[in-house]
C-alpha cells in the first residue's frame, strides 16, 4: 500500500483536544451501561477502549459523539461541557463499524459532505476532498460509488470523510471488525500513521485485544460500564491490575496457589504477587503462557520435583507462525498453555516438565 503524507490542509496544526468524561452515567431501562465512567484523553492521544461485548465501550463512544444522551456526569472537550451539544455541533469525526458511506453519492461527494455542511465553497471543497482521499491513497477512486468499493476501501473513505473537516476528536467504533484479517492489520496501521501525523485526539473502540495493544498509546479495559484499568499496552499486559484484566488481555493460565505475605506459591514455586495487599490464603494465580517453560521429561517424576518442575502430558499443540502454543494437562487435570519457540515440537501424549519463570503474577481469591 502506498504511504502518502497528510494533505497540506489536513496537516497537524495543533496538539489535539483534551477529552474528559467525568463520572458519566448512562442507563437503559434501569440497567447501567455506564457506571460513573471517568476517562481523560490527553491532546493528540490515541486511546483504545477494550472490553467484552456489553461492557459499555460503544455506549461511551456514542455518548462522547452525542449520539446518546447521558443520564449523569459531564463530557468536556477542551474544557467545554458538550453534554447538551447536539451531535452535529460537536465537531467530531466518526467512523462506524458498519459501512456508512452514502450509497447515492460518489466517494468524492461522500468526503465533501461534511465540508458542504460547513458551507465551504465548491472549488475548495473539491480540492480538500481529493487531498483527504490522497491521504488514504484512494484519490483515483473518487468517482466510484460505495457499492463499487471493497470493505477496506469503504472504511478508508469513511476515515477520509471523518478527517476532512479537521474535527477536534476522532472516534472509531470498531471500524475494522467487518474486514478480513489481512486488511484489518494494514488498515489499523494506516489509521495509526494518519492519527500520529495529524495529531488528532482519538478514541478507538474494539473488542480485539491485539488491535488495541497494537495501535493505542493507552488502552482502557472496560467491564460492566466501568474502566477496570487504563495504561500503556505494556503495563496492561505485564502488570494487570485485576484478575479480569489479566484474563482478558492476552492469554493467562489460572493456576491454584497460596498467597502468603506478598508471595504466591504455585506448585511449590515462589512468585511475587502484583498486588501485595491482596488477602492471604488460597488464590488463583494468572500466569502468562510465555512465563512457563517446557521441556521433555526425561527422568521421571522424582527428578522433576527435585528440580522444581511440574509433570504433565501434552494435549495439543498449535503452530502460530513465529511461535508455538502447547497445552499440557497436569496430574490434577489442570490445563496449562505454554508458549515457546516454534522449533520445539512436542506431540500429544508426550510427557513434559513445566517450570515457571519468576515474573510477578496477578491473583484472585480461589473459588
Amino acid at each position, binding site marked *: 500500500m502506498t504511504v502518502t503524507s497528510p494533505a497540506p490542509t489536513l496537516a497537524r496544526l495543533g496538539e489535539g483536544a483534551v477529552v474528559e468524561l467525568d463520572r458519566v452515567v448512562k442507563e437503559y431501562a434501569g440497567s447501567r451501561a455506564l457506571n460513573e465512567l471517568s476517562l481523560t484523553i490527553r491532546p493528540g492521544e490515541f486511546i483504545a477502549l477494550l472490553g467484552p461485548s456489553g461492557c459499555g465501550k460503544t455506549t461511551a463512544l456514542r455518548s462522547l459523539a452525542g449520539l446518546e444522551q447521558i443520564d449523569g456526569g459531564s463530557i468536556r472537550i477542551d474544557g467545554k461541557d458538550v453534554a447538551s451539544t447536539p451531535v452535529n455541533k460537536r465537531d467530531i469525526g*466518526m467512523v462506524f463499524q458498519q459501512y456508512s458511506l452514502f450509497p*447515492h*453519492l460518489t466517494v468524492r461527494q461522500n468526503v465533501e459532505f461534511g465540508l458542504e*455542511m460547513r458551507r465551504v465553497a465548491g472549488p*475548495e471543497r473539491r*480540492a480538500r476532498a481529493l487531498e483527504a482521499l490522497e491521504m488514504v491513497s484512494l484519490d483515483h477512486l473518487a468517482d466510484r460509488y460505495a457499492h463499487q*468499493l*471493497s470493505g477496506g476501501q469503504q472504511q478508508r473513505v469513511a476515515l477520509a470523510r*471523518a478527517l476532512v473537516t479537521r474535527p*477536534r476528536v476522532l472516534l472509531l467504533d470498531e471500524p475494522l471488525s467487518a474486514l478480513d484479517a489481512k486488511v484489518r492489520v494494514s488498515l489499523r496501521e494506516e489509521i495509526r500513521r494518519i492519527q500520529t501525523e495529524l495529531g488528532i485526539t482519538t478514541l478507538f473502540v474494539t473488542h480485539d485485544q491485539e488491535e488495541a495493544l497494537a495501535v493505542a498509546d493507552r488502552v482502557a479495559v472496560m467491564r460492566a460500564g466501568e474502566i477496570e484499568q487504563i495504561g500503556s499496552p505494556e503495563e496492561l499486559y505485564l502488570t494487570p491490575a485485576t484478575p479480569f484484566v489479566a484474563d482478558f488481555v492476552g492469554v493467562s493460565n489460572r493456576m491454584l496457589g497460596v498467597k502468603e505475605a506478598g508471595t504466591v506459591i504455585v506448585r511449590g514455586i515462589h512468585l511475587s504477587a502484583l498486588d501485595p495487599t491482596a488477602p492471604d490464603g488460597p488464590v488463583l494465580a494468572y500466569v502468562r503462557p510465555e512465563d512457563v517453560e517446557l521441556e521433555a521429561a526425561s527422568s521421571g517424576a522424582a527428578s522433576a520435583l527435585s528440580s522444581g518442575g511440574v509433570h504433565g502430558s501434552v494435549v495439543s499443540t498449535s503452530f502460530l507462525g513465529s511461535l508455538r502454543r502447547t497445552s499440557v494437562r497436569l496430574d490434577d487435570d489442570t490445563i496449562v498453555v505454554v508458549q515457546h519457540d516454534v522449533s520445539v515440537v512436542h506431540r500429544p501424549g508426550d510427557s513434559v516438565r513445566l517450570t515457571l519463570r519468576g515474573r510477578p503474577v496477578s491473583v484472585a481469591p480461589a473459588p
Partner: protein
Amino acid sequence: MSAVPLTSVSVEPTDSATAPRAPKSGRQPRFGAEPSPTARRIILIIVVGVFIVPLAAMFEFTLRVTGKSTLDFSHYVSIAHPDAATGVDYSPLFQGIANSLTITVLTVAIVLLILLPTMLLVELRYPRMRRLLEFVCILPITIPSIVLVVGFVPVYQTVAAIFGSSPWTLAFAVGIIVLPYAYRPIATNISAFDLVTLSEAARSLGGNWLTVIWRIILPNMRRGIVSAIFLTVAVVLGEYTIASFLSQNTFQTALLLISQTDPYVSTIFALAALIFAFILLVVIGRLGNRSPGAATARRERRAARSAAGSASPTPLTPLTPGETA
C-alpha cells in the same frame, strides 16, 4: 464414498482497487431456470397480448355506432359536444374525475406527510414500535371495504360537521385503505439500507435532521416512495365502495352512473383511465430507476456552469477548529 479431490483455490485480494469484475468471456454461466431469450420473447408477447386484446376490444367498442355496422369517432365527439336532444349530461363524470384527482393528491399527501415521517420516526427513534406500526398499517387489508364503510359512517358525521361534506374529505377514509399498499414498499426500502447508521454518519458530519432527511434518507428511499405513490394512485382511482356508500361523486361512481345511460362513453373513460395508469406506471418506474447520484450530478453540473463565468477559485484555507454550519 469416493474421496473428493482437493483443488487449489485462488483468493483474490479483498482490498483491491478494482470494482467487482465483469466476466472475461462473453458467455456467462446460467443459473436455475432463467428463461432463454426466445422464451423471454414468447412470454413478453403473451403478456402484451393479455393486456392489449381487451384494450383493443374496448377501443373497438367505443367506435361502434348503434344500429350501424360502421365504426367512427362519434362517441368521442359527443363527449365534447353532447347532443342536447338525448339529454345526456357528462358533467357529473368530469366532476367525478376532478374529485378523484383531488382525493388522489390529498391521499398521496397523507402518505408522504403522515405515513412516511411516522415510519422514519419509528425507525430512527422508536424501533420498538415498528411491529405495532406494521400491524396498524397492514390491518385495513384484512377488513372488507364494506365493513370499513359501516365504521366510517358515524365518523363521517363528525368529519362533515367539521369540514363539510365536500368530496375531498373522502381522502381521510381512502388514506386508511391505502395504508397497507403504501406501507409495504416503504418498509421494504427502509430495510434495504442501514438508515440509522447513515443518518448518524450524516449528523456526525454536521448535518441537521432536515438536511439528513432531505439529502441522505429520501434519496435512498426514492424507489420505495415512488412505489408507494403509484400504488396509492392506483388504489384511489379504483376505489368505488367507500365513495358510493358515503354518497360522494368520484370517477368510479360517475362512471357507473354514465354506463347506465351511455356505455360507449363510459368505456372511453375506462379505457382512458387504464392508459393513464399505464403511463403513470412507466413514468414513476423511470423516476424510481434513475442511477444513484443523478440528482447530485445534475446539481453539480449546474453549479459548475454557473461558476464557469464567476470569480477565481477560493484559496485553500483550512477550517478553524469548531467551525460548524
